[in-house]
């Protein structure tokens, strides 16, 4: 979230699309309803009428996988009716920038942008660029009238997204389409705020990243980013998925979103040179220019501090990807399926149910030599070898189940969706003989290190030179009790030597006050620069419980701590005009007093934009402004509607390019039977989507095992509309079989008006929906909806497309 939960109460219009907040983030509705009490409008856009829709002022159904068409129509509505916030766009976005005249768009190229290579299935992005002056700074037309400026091109691109065309793609009646457009676009002026609450309903598509981009563009057109009640708000699903992302349990990034080293970056200097964004604009802060300080401080935290600058502080000890190597989720299980992965950790996760195309995932596990699974409860991953269709005698995988403590049986912090990192304490010791995760990691560290010290082996330095200093060492040289505060402090970082900064001396061993103090000479450590400032000489900021809210807009700056540097609303310098005065005087986020900023921690402390020597407001981007034109995307600088890989219609009504042209196509490339998909195939005529329910969480391991929760939602179900049910002879409560090209599940039918058939291109399209919170390991609960979902991912992130695929449904025989 750019903003945070409490801030939702400051909105005038709330769009819940691609999420189902009332069901999956129920406490958010405390604030949604507070906003409504003050007159806000709630808009619910969802293929299915949900508990969120039940509270909405306007509900608009759309066919799964057509969000870009829906939102593209909104962009057209905003531009045609000049409902945008011109001054905001001129100051804070690249809307006025002039684009390369050779750049061409899908309207001219049948659904493609300029530079596409059919053979490589990717783009040469050279025309996706700005015209630049002699100094290399982008040229712009502040009046935003030049036909090559971003705003004009955006208008031209989305001129094709008329209400008729959009309705014909999405199945949304035009009346509701326009109601949503008008309500949302009413906030394109100073003093009005609209927010978007989205989640996996947007990310789990082959165009997931572009779904979010489309909305970000709308928010920038309307001046809704940086302000109270605005922003682009991803409602994250797990208690610490924000923190686990920040600490980068992901193949492509190191803690603090630093790129994983790759083979061509053979030393630290090359890493810094190649991975540091550059700008020629003296007015751009280009904050990532500090990358050298962050990677160096990370290395200092990871490895033995005796390693010197000449040894690149241990840079070579980090594993490096081959250039172009993609080690993401779908690739990981594809390689496992092919037998290339021998050992596997499933630490607090249940991929046998959460992985798209779960049948392939389960088969893949049978190819492992060993698996370590760490959890509170038995689950379908740990016990995959005795699951449906498995012959234990034929499976050679050794499996270790390590039981661990629950959240209140240990101490540490978790970061919520609003980036608040909150400390929690141990209420009771771990249950039975279960242990803290950190104690298990500690044991594994010492045991593996001991083996390498004793026996030698492959590249022992990476292990033996790791720093691991989180408590008192016993006579055996091992730590027997982990001090979690020592880890929190390492994440924040220390001065490793006496250092004078801006006239103040910081002593060796002191905690670094904030990331502005981090150094690239090896004199500071910080395990994650983004959390530098979280545990300082002032104490554990994460544990704070201050109740004050001096601004009155719900920032609670003394409650816990929020990254970065306790800034509660990101991009907040866009909440003010060139003179530093808030667009919204009633609920200001920051304001310039004439000598300094008041309110939230400003996004860079520079003076207002009208004053000389300042820096632009979007400090993380090289151009210093927000990207309405975003050349970083793989499929184009503007979003374009493409159909899901599996879809019910023959032709994309907008162009001859049916699917996202740059997705990795597993089936065609690898030819595995498990990866098969069926588009416009009569065997699988119905659109399907997956979701969660309030009463369960993720694959259900932590809720199916809670009797109070299982009581309320005891088993797998499929929701379908009465017309389809009648056609199929299905009644509510019947057991039915839902099948796709990958597998089938049994489910209880819930026949409901909450799903309605869609009228698309003159035909009737039925959609059904299934929760993915069940698994065979819970008696009588049914199995995972992910047995049905495909092996295909978003072009930018490789997040699987589990929100739109094709199925059949039959009454169980």
């Amino acid at each position, binding site marked *: 979230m750019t903003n945070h939960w409490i801030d939702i109460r400051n909105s005038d219009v709330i769009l819940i699309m691609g999420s189902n907040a009332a069901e999956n983030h129920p406490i958010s509705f405390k604030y949604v309803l507070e906003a409504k009490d003050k007159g806000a409008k709630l808009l619910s856009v969802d293929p299915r009428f949900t508990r969120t829709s039940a509270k909405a002022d306007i509900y608009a159904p759309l066919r799964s996988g057509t969000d870009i068409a829906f939102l593209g129509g909104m962009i057209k509505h905003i531009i045609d009716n000049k409902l945008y916030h011109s001054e905001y766009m001129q100051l804070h976005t690249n809307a006025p920038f002039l684009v390369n005249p050779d750049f061409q768009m899908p309207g001219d190229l049948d659904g493609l942008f300029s530079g596409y290579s059919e053979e490589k299935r990717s783009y040469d992005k050279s025309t996706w660029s700005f015209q630049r002056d002699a100094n290399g700074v982008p040229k712009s037309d502040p009046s935003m009238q030049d036909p090559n400026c971003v705003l004009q091109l955006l208008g031209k691109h989305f001129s094709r997204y008329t209400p008729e065309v959009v309705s014909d793609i999405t199945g949304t009646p035009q009346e509701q389409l326009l109601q949503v457009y008008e309500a949302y676009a009413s906030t394109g002026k100073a003093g009005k705020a609209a927010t978007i609450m989205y989640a996996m309903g947007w990310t789990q598509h082959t165009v997931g990243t572009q779904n979010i981009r489309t909305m970000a563009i709308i928010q920038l057109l309307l001046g809704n980013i940086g302000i109270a009640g605005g922003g682009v708000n991803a409602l994250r699903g797990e208690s610490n998925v924000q923190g686990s992302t920040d600490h980068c349990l992901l193949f492509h990034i190191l803690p603090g979103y630093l790129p994983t080293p790759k083979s061509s970056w053979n030393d630290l200097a090359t890493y810094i040179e190649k991975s540091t964004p550059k700008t020629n604009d003296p007015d751009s802060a280009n904050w990532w220019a500090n990358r050298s300080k962050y990677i160096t401080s990370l290395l200092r935290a990871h490895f033995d501090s005796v390693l010197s600058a000449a040894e690149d502080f241990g840079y070579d000890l980090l594993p490096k990807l081959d250039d172009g190597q993609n080690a993401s989720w779908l690739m990981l299980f594809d390689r496992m399926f092919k037998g290339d992965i021998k050992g596997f950790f499933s630490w607090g996760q249940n991929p046998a149910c959460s992985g798209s195309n779960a049948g392939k995932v389960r088969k893949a596990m049978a190819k492992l030599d060993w698996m370590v699974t760490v959890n509170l409860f038995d689950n379908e991953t740990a016990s995959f070898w005795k699951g449906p269709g498995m012959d234990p005698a034929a499976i050679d995988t050794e499996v270790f189940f390590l039981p661990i403590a629950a959240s209140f049986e240990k101490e540490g912090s978790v970061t919520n969706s609003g980036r608040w990192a909150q400390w929690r304490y141990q209420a009771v010791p771990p249950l039975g003989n279960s242990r803290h995760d950190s104690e298990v990691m500690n044991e594994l560290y010492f045991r593996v290190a001991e083996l390498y010290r004793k026996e030698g082996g492959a590249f022992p330095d990476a292990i033996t030179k790791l720093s691991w200093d989180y408590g008192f060492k016993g006579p055996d040289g091992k730590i027997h009790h982990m001090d979690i505060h020592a880890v929190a402090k390492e994440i924040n970082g220390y001065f490793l030597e006496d250092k004078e900064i801006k006239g103040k001396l910081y002593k060796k061993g002191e905690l670094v006050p904030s990331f502005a103090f981090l150094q690239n000479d090896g004199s500071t450590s910080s395990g994650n620069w983004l959390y530098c400032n979280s545990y300082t000489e002032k104490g554990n900021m994460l544990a704070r419980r201050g109740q004050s809210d001096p601004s009155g807009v719900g920032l609670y700056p003394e409650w816990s701590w929020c990254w970065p540097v306790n800034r509660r609303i990101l991009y907040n310098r866009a909440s003010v005009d060139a003179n530093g005065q808030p667009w919204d005087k009633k609920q200001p986020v920051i304001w310039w007093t004439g000598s300094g900023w008041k309110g939230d921690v400003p996004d860079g402390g520079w003076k207002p934009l009208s004053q000389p020597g300042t820096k632009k407001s979007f400090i993380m981007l090289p151009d210093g402004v927000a990207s309405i034109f975003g050349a970083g995307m793989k499929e184009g600088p503007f979003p374009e509607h493409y159909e899901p890989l599996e879809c019910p219609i023959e032709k994309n009504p907008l162009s001859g390019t049916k699917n996202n042209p740059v997705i990795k196509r597993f089936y065609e490339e690898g030819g595995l039977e498990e990866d098969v998909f069926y588009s416009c195939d009569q065997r699988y005529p119905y659109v399907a989507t997956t979701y969660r329910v309030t009463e369960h969480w993720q694959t259900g391991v932590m809720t199916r095992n809670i009797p109070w929760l*299982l009581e309320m939602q005891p088993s797998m179900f499929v929701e379908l509309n009465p017309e389809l049910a009648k056609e199929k002879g299905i009644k509510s409560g019947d057991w039915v079989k839902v099948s796709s090209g990958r597998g089938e599940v049994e489910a209880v039918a819930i026949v409901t*008006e909450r799903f309605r058939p869609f009228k698309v291109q003159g035909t009737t399209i039925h959609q059904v929906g299934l929760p993915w919170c069940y698994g065979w390991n819970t008696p009588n609960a049914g199995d995972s909806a992910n047995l049905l979902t495909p092996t295909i991912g978003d072009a930018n992130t490789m997040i699987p497309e589990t929100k739109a695929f094709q199925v059949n449904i039959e009454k169980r025989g």
Partner: protein
Amino acid sequence: MARKAFMIDTSRCTACRGCQVACKQWNKLPADAEVNRGSYENPPQLTPHLYNKIEFIEKGEGKDFTWRFLNQRCLQCGDAGCIKVCPSAGALFHTEEGLVGYDQDKCISCNYCVNGCPFDVPRYDANNKVTKCHGCMDRVANGLQPACVKACPTASLQFGDRDKLIAAAKASGKQVYGETALSGLGAMYALDGSPQDYNLAENPSIPQSIFLWKDVIKPLGILGFWGAVGAAMLHYVTVGPKQLEDDFEDKGGE
């Protein structure tokens, strides 16, 4: 003491069912084994282990479609059929705050409160003792909110001085269900629709037969030793003679 009450604002309920679980947690009630019958609503009705639940009500179609959520529980009647009908003094009673409490030690397992309730609320537990929402009388007596009310994220459930809750609901333009019926309910609804939209009786009343009990038999003082006989007579009045003997035979076994 001013009469306390629940006000249940249906327009604010998102059916998160925090109330359902918070109640079980505080009162340490076990889960029932359930199956999906083609609805989110589970268990389908109040049970001895379920003092409050959300009813999911789908009505209409297309643009007229509505999905409403109703918190079902003991409505804590001012004129409470269950108390009226109860033959065992002190087994069911009004608390100081006006809630309908019960004392299982005094419950004689006669089941009459079930018949006396206009809302089909009281249940009997494994020990054959009455059980139902008691408004968390232990919490309320100690100045805390009932567990369900405390948990409710959207203030759909409120608890406080009855008069103030009614005034506040009316001030916000809501229709109050249960303000006067049955001498005023101690759990009222602020409805965003008609009672029919929520499958609620327009004019809830205690079954007529109860009045015979209250006005004729109970004043005769047939309690205590005579309780069982009185109870039998009530059973005769409300159910008829057929099961009378069976009932006595069952009791004989205890």
